[in-house]
């Protein structure tokens, strides 16, 4: 496997792994909470990047998969008594299936029309869950505290969820890397540059786009289950925040869309920045403004993001930064 000798893969895996191991080594619950948020953002940003970065389609509804997967997994745990790992697999499967069906339909649209449709899907999903009685309607669902006993109490359950998150994070990075370096990924990037030309060259665009969409949906669905398991409750407002989709886009653009390391770096940077702003008395109320200005500056002046910019500026780094 030549790919395993690529330094870009080890950099992309190594940095999140080191960050992820830090709370486990220190056994500190406060660190764990901070890193949980960062790793979760990394998974969401990397997943979105598989679709948005490689194919160039804007998805404003990526959080639908997070919300739906979370809801399905949560339903399995709270109403059916399934334990966490199968629930995560259930959530991931549900998201993947939804992406497949949705992708078949709405990926026929291109450009801005597709972006509008994803906003519609997000709103339709939230409105539907708000009314869907088995999932608790507008109130949502909560876990019975007794559920945690099978993991050895709530504290152990949280550490267990954290370790699963770390494994999933490394998993999504592997998927992202192998998609990018594969023939399939090359097809996706050809679609991004010119969809018609790609089709002429033999890329079956509808299939390729759909599979990229499905791949980008599975991990957020699984992460959704973990997140709501940790929180102990789930409600429509938390699960389908249009804003969370946008934050994920900011992370991807900040680090560099279409690169493997970029979204990870972007997620880390964005969450650190947000953490700093939230505790600062001056910026506490205007963190959204700062994020907006940051996004605008990136779009206008460094559209390739940090990693993309470094790759353009210092060609030698291309061997390390994938």
């Amino acid at each position, binding site marked *: 496997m030549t790919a395993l000798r690529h330094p870009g893969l080890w950099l992309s895996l190594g940095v999140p792994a080191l960050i992820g191991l830090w709370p486990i080594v220190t056994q500190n619950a406060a660190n764990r909470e901070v890193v949980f948020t960062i790793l979760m953002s990394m998974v969401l940003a990397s997943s979105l990047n598989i679709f948005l970065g490689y194919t160039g389609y804007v998805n404003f509804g990526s959080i639908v998969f997070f919300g739906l997967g979370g809801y399905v997994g949560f339903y399995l745990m709270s109403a059916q008594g399934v334990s966490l790992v199968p629930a995560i697999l259930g959530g991931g499967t549900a998201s993947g299936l939804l992406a497949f069906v949705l992708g078949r339909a709405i990926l026929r649209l291109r450009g*801005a029309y597709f972006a509008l449709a994803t906003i*519609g899907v997000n709103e339709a999903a939230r409105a539907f869950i708000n009314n869907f009685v088995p999932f608790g309607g507008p109130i949502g669902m909560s876990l019975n505290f007794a559920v945690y006993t099978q993991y050895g109490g709530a504290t152990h359950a949280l550490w267990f969820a954290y370790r699963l998150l770390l494994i999933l994070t490394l998993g999504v990075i592997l998927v992202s890397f192998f998609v990018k370096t594969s023939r399939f990924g090359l097809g996706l990037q050809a679609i991004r540059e010119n969809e018609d030309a790609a089709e002429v060259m033999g890329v079956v665009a509808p299939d390729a786009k759909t599979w990229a969409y499905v791949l980008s949906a599975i991990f957020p669905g699984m992460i959704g289950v973990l997140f709501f398991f940790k929180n102990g409750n789930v409600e429509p407002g938390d699960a389908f925040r249009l804003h969370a989709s946008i934050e994920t886009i900011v992370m991807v653009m900040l680090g560099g869309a279409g690169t493997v390391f970029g979204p990870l770096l972007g997620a880390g940077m964005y969450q650190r920045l947000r953490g700093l702003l939230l505790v600062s008395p001056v910026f506490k*109320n205007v963190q959204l403004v700062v994020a*907006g200005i940051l996004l*605008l500056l990136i779009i206008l002046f460094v*559209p390739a993001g940090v990693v993309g910019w470094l790759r353009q500026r210092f060609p030698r780094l291309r061997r390390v930064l994938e």
Partner: protein
Amino acid sequence: MLDTLLASLTDGILLGFVYGLAAMGLALIWGVMNVINLAHGPIIALGMFGAYFLFTSFGMNPYLALLPIAVLGLLLGMIMYVLAVHRVINAPHLSTLLATFAVNMIIIGLGTAALTTTPRNIDFSLGSFVVGPATILWNRLAAALATIVIVGLLYLFLQRTRPGKHIRAVTDNRSAAELMGIPSSRVLALTFGLGSMLAAVAGGLIATLFPFNILSGGGYELKSFLIGVLGSLGNPFGALLGGLILGAIEGLLPGFVPTTWVPVFEFVFFVLILLWRPNGLLGARR
């Protein structure tokens, strides 16, 4: 049953005029420069607050207040174009979508910090009158009439004046218009200004009908997308018709399904129409 339906249909259609006005700004910008303005909602919300402050601080009649709101909306849109959109106008859709969304975040962030999210309302009721089964609120009728006047003015502007003709020329073919000596950057800035002016004025009218806060614009932005595909995305006058259709649907649907299900149907409908006729029900076939 029929009487209640008729009453809610009348209400819905009157409201539809205002929905249409809100969507016209979006449709105009999309039609002329192929940009979907994701800062549309916050501008509607700023229009609402404009009407609110002019009414509460200066005691200005809310309908008269539409004039200063229109001027401010025009300026805001032109500034937005220069700062956020101009540099990426020829870039892929991703860039313009994200640039306008960044403006959305900035306005919402500043608005939330300065104005909080407490609901406000303009205490200005004109009373009502009864026609057959329907009770019509004068506020709604006045808003519908104001919309008709504004649409008429926009039509005259686009058809009869020189800048209006420039806008139509740039819509049809930007490069050819530039070759004819039309300053396309200035025309695009003016269009963006007009689009946000329409949004702000619609916000001012909505403020006389319902309570609102800085986040309220978002709902009307989503409705505007829906109306865009109901009418035709690039045509402001199609948007007015789309608004009337949406108003009628919102008036009729609650007679058949629980009110909380209405948004589910609306957005499923939205995605289906996008798939079937991406340029809108009344738009040209691809």
